[in-house]
């Protein structure tokens, strides 16, 4: 129970590697910090798992609940398709494909660091201070806060819908398409992780505003469940160039489905997701640092 295989390579935990650090740590030190962070994350997550196992019935119920809550959005899509054959020019299996991909990506991020939205509460009640006196990176400790395996419910639901979509779609599989599938899911998870971290960093400034990040996390994944053709150009532009959620599934899925790219983007953008995810994580990491620094200078 103490060691969770597979959790060490949680995607997109915004490690400090890959960008120049304003505080002047060397890369080796940074790698050490990253390793320390992952270790602390694993230790704390294991404690939370043990804690939830103290209430097994509740754990089972909430896992089912998580699965069902996640499925609610798909129920809406099914209801829509009970009345129409296509939405924005996409068939049900195609929409299900988009839905499955973003749900798994978001589910992974939610599983990994989904409780980061509690940061504001920790700042308010002063319990963040208790994390600051421990010999482990605070980000890792906050990320592992309330780690909950019940969130596998959403991942499972997303995988099932993806499976359904793949079974119904008549895709011509090539090696790049096959490779793109896991890359897409992990990169998507990374992008959502970045959103979670940036949202938490924002809470250093506005402690009560945890709901803002719901607009980008839950709202983002709701948006990506539907084809880009449904939305206004400006909105699509916004989630491509400003908050690059389009790289979670729209662009790579356009390649896999053989659909036109949103905004007439070139084909290579379908493969840019890992880079975009890395850049997002780096920026979110910087935002986190700035937030933590301001907390340590203002105490609130």
């Amino acid at each position, binding site marked *: 129970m103490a060691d969770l295989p597979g959790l060490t390579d949680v995607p997109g935990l915004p490690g400090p590697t890959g960008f120049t650090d304003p505080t002047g740590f060397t890369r080796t030190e940074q790698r050490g910090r990253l390793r320390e962070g992952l270790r602390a994350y694993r230790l704390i997550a294991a404690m939370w798992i043990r804690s939830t196992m103290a209430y097994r019935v509740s754990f089972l119920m909430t896992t089912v609940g998580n699965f069902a809550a996640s499925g609610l959005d798909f129920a809406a899509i099914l209801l829509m398709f009970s009345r129409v054959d296509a939405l*924005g020019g996409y068939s049900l299996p195609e929409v299900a494909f988009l839905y499955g991909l973003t749900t798994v990506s978001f589910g992974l991020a939610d599983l990994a660091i989904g409780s980061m939205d509690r940061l504001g509460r920790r700042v308010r009640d002063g319990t963040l201070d208790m994390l600051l006196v421990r010999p482990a990176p605070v980000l890792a400790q906050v990320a592992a806060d309330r780690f909950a395996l019940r969130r596998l419910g959403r991942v499972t639901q997303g995988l099932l819908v993806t499976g359904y979509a793949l079974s119904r779609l008549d895709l011509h599989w090539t090696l790049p398409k096959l490779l793109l599938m896991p890359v897409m899911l992990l990169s998507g998870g990374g992008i959502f992780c970045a959103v979670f971290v940036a949202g938490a960093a924002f809470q250093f400034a506005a402690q009560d505003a945890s709901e803002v990040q719901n607009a980008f996390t839950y709202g983002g994944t*709701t948006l990506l469940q539907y084809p880009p053709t449904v939305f206004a150009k400006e909105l699509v532009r916004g989630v491509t160039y400003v908050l690059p959620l389009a790289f979670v599934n729209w662009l790579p899925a356009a390649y896999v489905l053989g659909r036109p790219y949103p905004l007439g983007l070139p084909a290579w953008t379908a493969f840019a997701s890992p880079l975009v995810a890395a850049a997002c994580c780096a920026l979110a990491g910087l935002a986190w640092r700035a937030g933590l620094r301001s907390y340590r200078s203002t105490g609130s």
Partner: protein
Amino acid sequence: MGAGRLYAAVAAGGFRRYATYRAATLAGVFTNTVFGLILVYTYLALWDVRPHLGGYDRTQAVTFVWLGQAFLSTLAIGGGGVEDELMERIRTGDIAVDLYRPADLQLWWLSADLGRAVFQLVGRGVVPFVFGALFFPAALPSDPVTWLAFAGTLPLAMLVSFGIRFLVALSAFWLLDGTGVVQMAWLAGYFCSGMLLPLNVFPGALGETVRALPWSSMLQAPADVLLGHADPLATYAFQGAWAVALLAAGRLVQSLATRRVVVQGG
């Protein structure tokens, strides 16, 4: 008279409590607006294919979306009203203190929840609705009578909403862990109120069933009155019947629960 003033004070307290969280309110307004924006486009895509789906036209579908965002926190459709606190008090045993108060438990919490609902309507609901009406083609009645009729559905919707959540909260007397019930209530609230999709879009028997359930009094019924789709008086009767049934059930369960507390000695 004195009792009336007491519950008015409790309601005012409920209003003020939620009013203190300004940043949270602003955050909520922002989030509701973003969700409304996303949903509007998906609905428009649906109505593009079927222009008269469920008897609504495009503008009516758009209006429905923004009404949903305005009502989501007002009617605590997904939960998040006073029932959270009530459950916590039952769980910790503090409820025994409430029972010794010279006030009725159900009326006390109803007042607090009404105060909350009014604040959420004004603080969180109005802005997304106005935003939607300004930037999207909305179907708003020009006739003040329809607006009045619509306003009449609101208190009834609040009563039904509270009636459901009061029952949910009281389950904590019997269940050690109320998470499961809260989750079920959340799912039912979203699915059966019209929050997920207007109930008149639901196919066949499923549609008829959900429209007969109490949750439809919360979003679908007021929306139909606002959009001129339903007779106000029939709607009031429907909402009122459910409100009476739910509140009576709440009272019954409450008396069972308090007897239990007394027997156990708190």
